């Protein structure tokens, strides 16, 4: 500042020219709150399910393994449809053990890399939140490799149906795709 004060005859009488930013500031002050109000901070996405259409479909021979995750009130059951119970995951601290399920499915995925379909069959009283969590656990797995998080696909074609009552595996299944 002091350097500018050095007198140069008449020039010193003019004050430093300043940009008039009032209009710009007005614009900003109006725009910022408006855009802040408009801004969406939670991003909504969807999990897509395809319900079976009325059109008849010809079914090819059944795949090598038909995975089913059954959400019981107290545990998660992983089954090969109508054939065998693969494993059962009891609740841990009143929460379903999704991590164990994902790990088990990862093992299965290595032996059946072509299979993409899985059915999620919750019992009547199972919470919607837990259904979504199961779908997440079944869809993909995220693991760390060389300090990088990698998301690997597991079984993205999720069907949603009703849990079989008792032993008989009779259920309506809504076919889905991711």
């Amino acid at each position, binding site marked *: 500042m002091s350097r500018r004060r050095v007198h140069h005859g008449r020039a010193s009488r003019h004050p430093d020219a300043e940009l008039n930013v009032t209009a710009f500031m007005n614009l900003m002050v109006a725009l*910022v709150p408006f855009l802040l109000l408009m801004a969406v901070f939670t*991003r909504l996405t969807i999990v897509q399910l395809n319900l079976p259409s009325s059109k008849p479909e010809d079914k090819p021979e059944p795949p090598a393994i038909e995975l089913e995750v059954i959400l019981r009130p107290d545990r998660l059951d992983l089954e090969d449809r109508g054939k065998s119970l693969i494993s059962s995951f009891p609740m841990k601290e009143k929460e379903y053990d999704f991590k164990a399920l994902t790990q088990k499915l990862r093992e299965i995925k290595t032996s059946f890399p072509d299979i993409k379909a899985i059915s999620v069959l919750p019992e009547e009283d*199972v919470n919607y939140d837990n259904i979504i*969590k199961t779908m997440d656990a079944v869809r993909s797995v995220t693991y760390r490799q060389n300090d990088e*998080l990698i998301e690997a696909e597991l079984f993205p074609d999720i069907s949603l149906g009703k849990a079989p009552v008792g032993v008989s595996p009779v259920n309506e299944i809504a076919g889905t795709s991711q």
Partner: protein
Amino acid sequence: MRQSRRASRMERHYSRGKKVPGFNLVSLMDIFTILVFFLLVNSSEVQKLPTTKVVSLPESTADVKPNDSIIVMVTPEEILVENEVVAKVESFKDESSSTAAIATLQSALITQMDKMLVLVVDGEKKPPEVAVMADKSIPYNLLHKVMQAATAAGIEKVSLAVIQKVPEEG
């Protein structure tokens, strides 16, 4: 009155410090400009699903973007189709009234389908879709009945709305 040299010098000396410094707006303008651009870019993405406080959606790692669809909202008390209350959740509880409730929901969906513009792709009508925005506390039972009504109304695609979250290691 003629000032002495000393007086004029002193006056000049005092007036030097009294000059009001202009507000320094540079940093403020920087912030605003950055903020405005950030928000503009952010809001350019049109949200197709409404945000509501009535339902608390579950969180999921799904990253499929929502598309145009009929919105069925399932709150812990009511079922709304495109923001109109269609049925009470209570009526879905027992068997006798739930059949009637499913029927009302079905007819409401059919009316909405008629209102919607139908996309025609390659001479084929694109089937209408339904997005279910359900509260995370509802039981599967109820969700199943809503889906039943949707199938009965001839809808082939049902999607569940969720809030996106970052996948965790697991």
